[in-house]
Each structure stands twice: as C-alpha cells, then as structure tokens.
C-alpha cells in the first residue's frame, strides 16, 4: 500500500464546548481528486484550516506523505507542498497581479530574505511567476493592482497564488464561489489540467462541479465524516440524500 498524501487520525477541534471537527479520520491518496461536501456549518472550512495549520487542533494527528505535520507552522507546511486557497479573497489590494504571484515564487526559490537585489533582477522567479500568470489567463492584467480586477479574476489570482507555491497537495476552499457561470468552467479546466501527481482536495457547493471533477467524495456532517465513496456511491446513498442533497441530484 502506498502512503496517502494526507491522513488524519482522530482530528478534533473544539471551540469551548462546541465541537466543530469531531474525530475525523480522513485519507486522501496521492494524486486523488477528492471533494468534501456537506451542509453549511458541517465544518468543511475548519477542516481545511486544521490541515493547513491556520487553526490548531484540540486533539488528533495530521500526516502529510506519512510525516507528522500536526505541530508545524503554516509556512512550513507550504514549504512541504501543502498549499491552500481561501474561500474569501485574501489578496494584496495595492500590489499588482505579478507582484502578488512573485511573493510566492520568491519565497519558494529562497529569495524572500534577499534585500540587496532588485526584484526585476531575479529572472528565475519572474519567469516562474509569469508562467502561472499566463496559465490562469491573467497576462493582460498582470501589471494592474489587484483592487482594479473583476471579482472573477481575483478568484483566479487566488488560485494563481496557490499554484505559484508549487503544491504537491492543493486544498481548494470553494474556488468557484462568486465566479460567474461562464468563468467557473475555465477555472475547473485549469484545475483539472494540473499534473496528476498534484493531489487536489476540493470543498465546493456546486454539485455539478463536484461530480464532474472528483473521483472520490467525503461527506461531512456536524463536524464528523458521514460517509465516503465514489461519486456514484455517494449519489445513491440515501443518508447523503437525506442530510444534504435533497431530492434534486442528477449525475
């Protein structure tokens, strides 16, 4: 058996007496396209926050490629290839698109502490950043400040920032939220086109996108895992229909 990209054991998060994440044992195989679904308040974003170190768990363990990362800081996990996007845009309003992406590539190439070279002289980093900018179709706005971008493009930039950190495991927290219908297809084509050795864990509300993208789905309810399986299994599962999907589901 190969080592999974992500494995959690008994992962629990309490805020006071309120249990937000309840004894979650999640396994994401390397190269998987896995989705986490669940009703509002099921603890999906909290789970991502725990995996990336944005929050500290109350109990349990997190492994990345077999190594315990439970106590590592956020930036150290990024250094090991575990990268996320945010549900709400958390961007840098006054920086241009290219400068924003450079933040990630500079850091990945170990230039983040270099104070004696001009950034325009760091060609390797610029070339990498430019690749990501082009990949997401942001080249024509590359020199505009982030705040001048449309919301849809800001969402693309959010993804660009994550990709610039060269993830081996990419956690996408509702990447299509607020993106106009026409543009979300393009967004998912970009994500689907990522090399298969990049593991993708997706949180998404749009069932069409989830079932079109994922080869494995985990259902989260009240902070705990209700069930897990292939899209077909999940679509047929009566418990899933009951808690979440309602009646209207077409695969």
């Amino acid at each position, binding site marked *: 058996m190969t080592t999974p990209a992500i494995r959690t054991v008994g992962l629990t998060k309490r805020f006071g007496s309120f249990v937000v994440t309840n004894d979650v044992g999640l396994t994401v195989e390397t190269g998987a396209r896995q989705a986490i679904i669940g009703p509002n308040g099921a603890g999906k974003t909290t789970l991502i926050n725990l995996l990336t170190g944005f929050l500290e768990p109350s109990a349990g363990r997190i492994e990345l490629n077999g190594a315990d990362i439970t106590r590592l800081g956020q*930036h150290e996990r990024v250094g090991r290839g575990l990268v996320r996007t945010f549900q709400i845009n*958390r961007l*840098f309003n006054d920086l241009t698109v290219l*400068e924003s992406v450079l*933040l990630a590539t500079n850091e990945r190439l170990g230039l983040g502490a270099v*104070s004696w*070279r*001009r950034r*325009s002289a*760091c060609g390797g980093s610029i070339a990498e950043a430019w690749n990501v900018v082009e990949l997401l179709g942001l080249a024509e706005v590359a020199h505009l400040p982030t705040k001048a971008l449309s919301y849809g493009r800001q969402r693309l930039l959010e993804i660009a920032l994550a990709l610039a950190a060269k993830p081996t495991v990419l956690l996408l927290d509702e990447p299509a939220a607020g993106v106009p219908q026409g543009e979300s297809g393009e967004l998912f084509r970009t994500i689907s086109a990522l090399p298969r050795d990049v593991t993708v864990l997706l949180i998404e509300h749009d069932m069409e996108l989830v079932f079109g993208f994922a080869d494995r789905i985990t259902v989260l309810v009240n902070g705990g895992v209700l069930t897990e399986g292939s899209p077909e299994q999940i679509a047929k599962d009566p418990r899933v229909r009951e808690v979440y999907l309602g009646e209207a589901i077409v695969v």
Partner: protein
Amino acid sequence: MTPSWEAAAVRLRERERWKSPETVFWCAALVAPFVLPDDHLFLSQIAILGLFCLSLDLVLGIAGILSLGQAAFFGLGGYTAGLFAIHVDGDPLLGLVVAMVATSLLGVLAAPLLLGGRDLTRLLITVAVAGILYEAANKWSAVTGGVDGLQGIVIAPLFGKIEFDLGGTVAYWYALAVLFLVFLGLRRLKSSPFGLALAGIRLNPQRMPALGVPVDRRLTVAYAIGGAVAGIAGALLAQTTQFVSLDALSFHRSAELMLILVLGGAGNLYGALLGAIVFSVAHHLLSEINPMYWQFWMGTLLILIVLFAKDGLTGGLSRLRDHLWKGGTAP
C-alpha cells in the same frame, strides 16, 4: 523572440528606476550649505532627523509595524556612540558601526516581544521598551550622566584627517553622506524581494504564511534594520553635538517622529525626508515668530496637510504633478 516574462521584468524594472525628482532632491541637499552658509549645524540636524525618520518609514511605512518607541534605538545609538568615544576610541566611523551593532541587537531582542501581539499591543510594547531604557539611563547616572546628559565626548577627526568645526560644516557633509548611503540601502531594500515580502505582510499579514512566508522572521529583520538606522541617527547626533541628552530616549521624540512621517507621507522614503525638512524649518520659523505657541501653528499646519492630502506631502505632491501633467498635455 523575447520570452514574455522578460517584458514583464522590464516593466518591473521601470518602477524601480531612479526618477528625475530624486536627482533634484539630492542636488538641493548638495547646494543647501552654499545657500545657507550660516546654518550648517541646523542643516546637519535636519539630515539626522531625516535619517531617524527613515527608520520609522521602514518599520511602519514599509513593514507596517506600529511603533511609537523608535527613540529607544535613537537614544541607545547616541549613548553607545558617546560612551564608545569617551572610553574606547574617538573615531567617528567606528563609533557608528558600534552603535549600529548595539541597536540592531536591541531590535532582535525586542522583536519577539512585540510580534506576538496585534497592532495596539505592539504599539504599547514599543512605548514600554523605550520607557524602560529612558528610566535606566536616568538612574544609571554614573555612566550616562543622568538628567545632565552625557558630556565630555571628544570625536577624532574624520578618516583621521578632517577635524569637526564649530560651524558644523564637516558635520553636515558627514551626516549627509551617511544619510545618502543609508537611503540607497533602504531604497534597494524596498525594491528587493524582501521589500516585496514586507509590503505583502503590511497589506495582508494573515495571508502570507499560506504563501510559505515566515512572517515573524521577516518582521524581526525589518525591525532590527529599522533599529540600526535609528541608532546610526542617534550616534550622528551624539558625535556632531558632542553631547547626549536624556531627551534622546524620551517618548515625545518617538511621537514627534510619527508626526513627521505622517506629515511627509509614509512608505516611500522621500516622505520621511521631506517631512523632516518641513517640520524642522516650520519649527525654526514658528518658534522665532512666537517661542511660546509654536506648537499651536505646527498643529494647524499638520491638520491642514492631513485635510488636503491624507497621504502627506509626498502623496499630495504626486497627485498635484499628475494633475498638472494631464492638464498640461491635454489637447
């Protein structure tokens, strides 16, 4: 064909390029002592104040650390340079280096205290650190001279040749040269990858760790460099006036510095320098007109500037330039 990332690099280079107003500014600094032959000491103090204000611009304007305690570094730099000259060696450049090392050490030691907290906590800790140093210097009068200040500083000639004169001519050129070198270093820092990381941290500190950036480490370095710059300024004042007053560590120095930076405009380095010039000149002229109530007029000036240009003199000037430029070239 040129790969398109190279075109992007050219665009980036464009923003870092030395602009003509910068040349004008530094030429004015070179000409100033000839225009004002009797005010060289005053000019040297402006240069030192400008250098001091650059330290706050790095810490607050570029890295976004709210500091109301830069005087801690200014005073420590002054006392270090003064004591070094009295007890060890009178060479001014050696004194600057020693002051720089001492103050950057203070920065590294104090950084963990303030980086744990948020803006207001940070502010209070910077005030507290300066307060502790002030009281320590006050009580330890056997070494520091206490309220009487540190006296008896004798500075050796610059490079072993150039004697400091009473008129302050050497002091001005010395201070200006140090200011210019530090400015060049900070200007480069601002356009480096490290400077970009600091801008990112200032704009969105929560997002940066998710890009792999060790935020605390970056801020510690920025705070220590800022401390060293303030320390150099304090050392320059000690060397050029041959005196260190307890006032160098006082709270009102830090507060005044914040006022000067807001006046000039934060985050672009020139705001700090322009603020120091306008503040010093206004202070000088206003206290000549009315020695008792100059602060009233200074307050009025500040309110006017903030009303008409929230981003200070540099912000207002650059908008004015854009306005005139567009107006001038309109068909």
